[in-house]
């Protein structure tokens, strides 16, 4: 029987329209916009000024604090301006705008095919190089990877878990990467094992990616300690705590980090970025993005430079369909609608999903019929209907007691509600209020 997590879960239509396609390299656009806040934590500190010439892979912003990450230029050209630019939510944040000229790479970066020796690299050296390359979690949370690999004192990891579940419907970027760069990913896993000094690594892959499971399983015996674990197709299989439960059976306690159970979880995209950083000395300047949707002509996976406006990706995939209701950054479950198509691709953009107006439209909310579907499917064992009710009455203390902060915002409750109640919106509001209260009390 296939492994899966033990509480809740749903199975929305998979709609993996872009599956099977090898990532196509998208031509470099004429201008890129690189935001300085592409990671969890403090925005990076700017190092370039208007008019500066930059080369591909050059450091343009330094991490500013413990939880922060470096940012590199994804193209070569001239910095045309440094300005506040609207992010996906319309809030304007500092960004570097670069006019592209040729594609001149930094000399230190090795070209495709060349490799640096990696045997016997000490753990600190690997983590340092990951930090230098500005690598963050590419699954969407954008948490700086070097911080994750440096466990707090007293904690020791004993298993590395690689998230190849890609449980979000529509998205196929990790799938495409696993097929195209299987060996590189396995080498990356070995490097990460070296970095966190563990003997065992498990790559969890949902069973709807049979080809990836077969290909990686065939290669895995050459990489000691690496296991491929096929998983049941169930959303949110790729959630950190869910994946740890599915693969190891360990339950991370409420409010605790995965490291408390000796696990470190990284995404497939992140592993490949780590491989490139260590073996080719290449910073994180491009990523694979699925461009998909039922209306779109040519759903595909693209290898895109960070900072490319989303419009270019959509044009490559056949242009914006007439009847587009929402452009979503990420998948349909956890992604967020973008305010327009000029938003740049950031380190956390796993997909661009176009949804037709009718499908995008939220249905009007009706009264709760107490069917308890949301309770049954909640993967954190919460009572979403109750949390929503008390959120309506602003009972933030009570929400906190009912573990609202455990919510991973997977959206299964809102998805499954037959009365179309905006459950997650209310929970998110409650989480924000609880966070504010905690900040006040701190």
């Amino acid at each position, binding site marked *: 029987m296939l492994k899966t997590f033990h509480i809740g879960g749903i199975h929305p239509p998979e709609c993996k329209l872009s599956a099977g396609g090898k990532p196509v390299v998208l031509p470099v656009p004429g201008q890129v916009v690189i935001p300085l806040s592409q990671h969890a934590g403090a925005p990076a500190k700017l190092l370039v000024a208007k008019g500066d010439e930059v080369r591909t892979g050059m450091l343009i912003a330094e991490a500013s604090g413990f939880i922060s990450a470096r940012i590199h230029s994804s193209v070569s050209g001239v910095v045309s301006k440094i300005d506040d630019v*609207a992010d996906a*939510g*319309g809030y304007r944040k500092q960004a570097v705008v670069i006019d592209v000229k040729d594609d001149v790479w930094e000399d230190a970066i090795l070209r495709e095919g060349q490799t640096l020796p990696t045997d016997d690299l000490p753990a600190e050296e690997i983590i340092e190089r990951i930090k230098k390359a500005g690598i963050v979690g590419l699954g969407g949370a954008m948490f700086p990877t070097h911080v994750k690999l440096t466990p707090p004192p007293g904690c020791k990891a004993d298993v590395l878990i690689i998230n190849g579940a890609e449980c979000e419907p529509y998205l196929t970027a990790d799938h495409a990467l696993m097929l195209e760069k299987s060996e590189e990913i396995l080498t990356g896993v070995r490097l990460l094992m070296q970095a966190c000094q563990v003997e065992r690594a498990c790559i969890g892959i949902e069973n709807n990616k049979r080809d990836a499971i077969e290909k990686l399983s065939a290669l895995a015996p050459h990489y000691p300690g690496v296991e491929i674990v096929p998983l049941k197709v169930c959303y949110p299989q790729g959630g950190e705590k869910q994946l740890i439960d599915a693969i190891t059976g360990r339950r991370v306690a409420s409010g605790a980090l995965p490291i408390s159970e000796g696990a470190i979880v990284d995404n497939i995209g992140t592993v490949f970025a780590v491989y490139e950083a260590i073996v080719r000395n290449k910073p994180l300047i491009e990523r694979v993005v699925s461009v998909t949707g039922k209306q779109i002509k040519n759903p595909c996976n693209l290898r895109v430079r960070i900072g490319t406006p989303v419009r270019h990706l959509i044009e490559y995939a056949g242009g914006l369909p007439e009847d587009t209701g929402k452009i979503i950054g990420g998948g349909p479950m956890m992604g967020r609608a973008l305010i327009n198509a000029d938003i740049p691709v950031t380190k956390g953009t796993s997909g661009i999903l176009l949804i037709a107006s009718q499908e995008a439209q*939220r249905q009007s909310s009706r009264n709760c019929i107490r069917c308890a579907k949301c309770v049954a499917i909640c993967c954190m064992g919460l009572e979403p209907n109750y949390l929503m009710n008390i959120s309506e009455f602003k009972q933030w203390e009570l929400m906190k007691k009912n573990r609202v902060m455990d919510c991973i915002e997977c959206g299964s409750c809102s998805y499954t509600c037959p009365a179309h109640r*905006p459950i997650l*919106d*209310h929970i998110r*509001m409650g989480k924000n209020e609880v966070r504010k209260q905690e900040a006040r009390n701190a």
Partner: protein
Amino acid sequence: MDFILPAVLSLGLISIISAIVLYIVSKKFEVREDPRIAEIQAILPAANCGGCGYPGCSGFAAACVAASSLDGLLCPVGGAATMTRLAGILGKTVERSDPRIAVLHCNGRCEKRPRLNRYDGLSVCAAASLLYGGETGCSYGCLGMGDCVAVCNFNAIRIHPETLLPEIDEARCTACGACAKACPKQLIRMLKKGPDSHRVYVACMNKEKGAVARKACAAACIACSKCVKICVSQAITLENNLARIDEEKCILCGQCVAECPTSAIVEHIKNKIESC
């Protein structure tokens, strides 16, 4: 009949013992409340709005009695009249404070602020602002979903059907500040009501550079600093691309209102909003 006597005796004994126990307990655990608290509570408006910063009117009454001076304590609903009576009961003095009123610092009506996208989520400003900056190009402006209306205990705010902005009823607003706390964009502030409701304020919170702000909203403060130059009492300063009027220095001459190219500075006269 011989069952009556033991019953009367035993019941009598139990009641005497209970009476003694109750008497001792009531003496021992007596809570002595200052009678002035009840007295003050009687003159407070009983709105329990929390505008004073205490949990309800009884909390405020207790705080007033406990405090050594009344500085910093104010019942915004009752205003100066209530505070004077309250001070009389306590035999303390109260400094005269100007009446205040809630003022919306956004003038981005529909015709001034084009809508660029459509929000179909939960119609609560706090929820929408967690997701994104709003339907227009201005991420500082009013979202118009009425969190302020929902929290107002005095029915003093409504969303105006044409401008789609909250409108504050002069007569009903008590400046309790509940709306200011509820607004996720911090657009409502308690300003001095001004003589005869005459006041001048900057109805904008957009901190972007002029060109960006102007593009998003025709009524935005574009930080041109014309008002700063024309002000005779040096009451206006520019901070973060936004003009700010110092209430203490402003003499309500209205010159800045006439000078402002985008009508971001609003002059309120009586019950009518006048803007150029």
